[in-house]
């Protein structure tokens, strides 16, 4: 059902936790839906220097979070907002059709966090 890449990221997820001194964070999903994804980042000079996640969800949700954080570390905020869920899926070697929404959740969490950062910076 899952690719080796998904299982690898589920078994050994990267960047789990909460970034200290985060200046970008966002949570998407709800316990009722069975998925909650929380992203926190430290952004310096528009570059993501640290990024972590915590996820309540299925193996695909955890793997998507792990993969997305790996793809974004060291990237600029402009690059981050352009990250598409399909790129996360490709990096995972594919997701089952009923699990596509897990990658969408990752995309939304990242967008939300970046927005939080941009709004915070303006204030």
């Amino acid at each position, binding site marked *: 059902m899952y690719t080796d890449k998904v299982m690898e990221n589920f078994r050994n*997820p990267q960047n789990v936790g909460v970034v200290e001194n985060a200046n970008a964070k966002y949570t998407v999903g709800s316990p*009722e839906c069975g998925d909650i994804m929380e992203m926190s980042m430290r952004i310096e000079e528009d570059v993501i220097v640290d990024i972590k996640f915590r*996820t*309540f969800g299925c193996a695909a949700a955890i793997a998507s979070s792990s993969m997305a954080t790996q793809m974004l570390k060291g990237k600029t905020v402009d690059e981050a907002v352009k990250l598409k869920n399909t790129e996360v899926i490709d990096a995972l070697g594919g997701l089952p059709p009923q699990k596509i929404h897990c990658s969408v959740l990752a995309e939304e969490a990242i967008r939300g966090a970046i927005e939080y950062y941009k709004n915070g910076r303006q204030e």
Partner: protein
Amino acid sequence: MEKRRVYLDYAATTYLDKEVLKEMSPYFTDVFGNANSQHLFGRDAAKAVAEARVKIAEIIGSKPNEIYFTSGGTEADNWAIKGIAAAYEGLGKHIITSAVEHHAVLETCKALEKKGFEVTYVPVGSDGVLDLKAFENAIRDDTILVSIMYANNEIGTVMPIQEAVAIVKKQNHRIYFHTDCVQAAGALDIDVNKSGVDLMSVSAHKFYGPKGIGFLYIKNGVKLDKLISGGNQERKMRGGTLNVPHIVGMAKAFELASLHREKNNAHIQSLRDGFIDRILSEIDNVYLNGSREKRLPGNANLSFEYIEGESLLMSLDLEGIAASSGSACSSGSLDPSHVLLALGIKIELAHGSLRFSFGKSTTRKDVDYTVDCLKDIVNRLRAMSPLFYQLPSKKTNV
């Protein structure tokens, strides 16, 4: 910890007993005749089928001609419900079932709703046992059929079938009572004289028999329409060449299950109870779903708070342990179990529920290994869960 392979999904299916396989084996190759053929090859096969029918009838306390072989539990459920509905729709178009039935019953009822039937889904209590008061209130003048499972497939709760039958027959003798006995057969005494049901579905692969075979008990005198049209098999009620080896295997498996029921149940229940006790005492925020007492001996259904069930299931799988989230038939879906929601369990807890079902080959080592793995996995997944951290009083052990 040395890795093991542990099967704790006996409620989904069991392995075929070697003794059963041995009994079946000649009927694939040597005694291969069509049981409906008149010649000697056919007669040999027919004799085996007749013997199997007698064996099964003896176990459930029925007459042999009240046993109708089917392709399994789902067909038997479909036949009982659709067959009665079609035969008696002139008398009424109301059916009563429960909110926690297997999809084989629920989806059949939904299909009938589309054809103009009205279905009442009687609730269960928070213990997962049929609410008899609500059940009694659901009976109407135009009710023609009741279908209540003998024991639930997800949480293992045993329903008060005898009481429910008594309520129905006291009120209205014209209402037929069907029970989906798929989970209970093999584990419980399902004598139809004791329960008083009119129709009963059974599947062989839940009691170490082959897959793809089951039967519907139809009490003599109950008339229902056919589900499968065809030849003259099964007293002209169910077309299709009889699956002789599987029928022989089902009878043998049922005989063994019945013969060793007490011994098997004692073994299974003691392991299951030890498992539940260890989990509840060694892992925080875990809940047993469904009544602990009115429960099949091999079932444990637990909610692990702050964790989503599929990730728990996959983590167990990586350790070589097979359990189930919801029922195997619905585990591809993202919706939480209709059974757990019917118990009034919070939806996020329903998402974090797993069924562990024990069988006659389960060992103490299997149980201990599973609990040890679960403790690590639960800690690991909770450490990842934003729900767990949100509560200031909860500290992870990792």
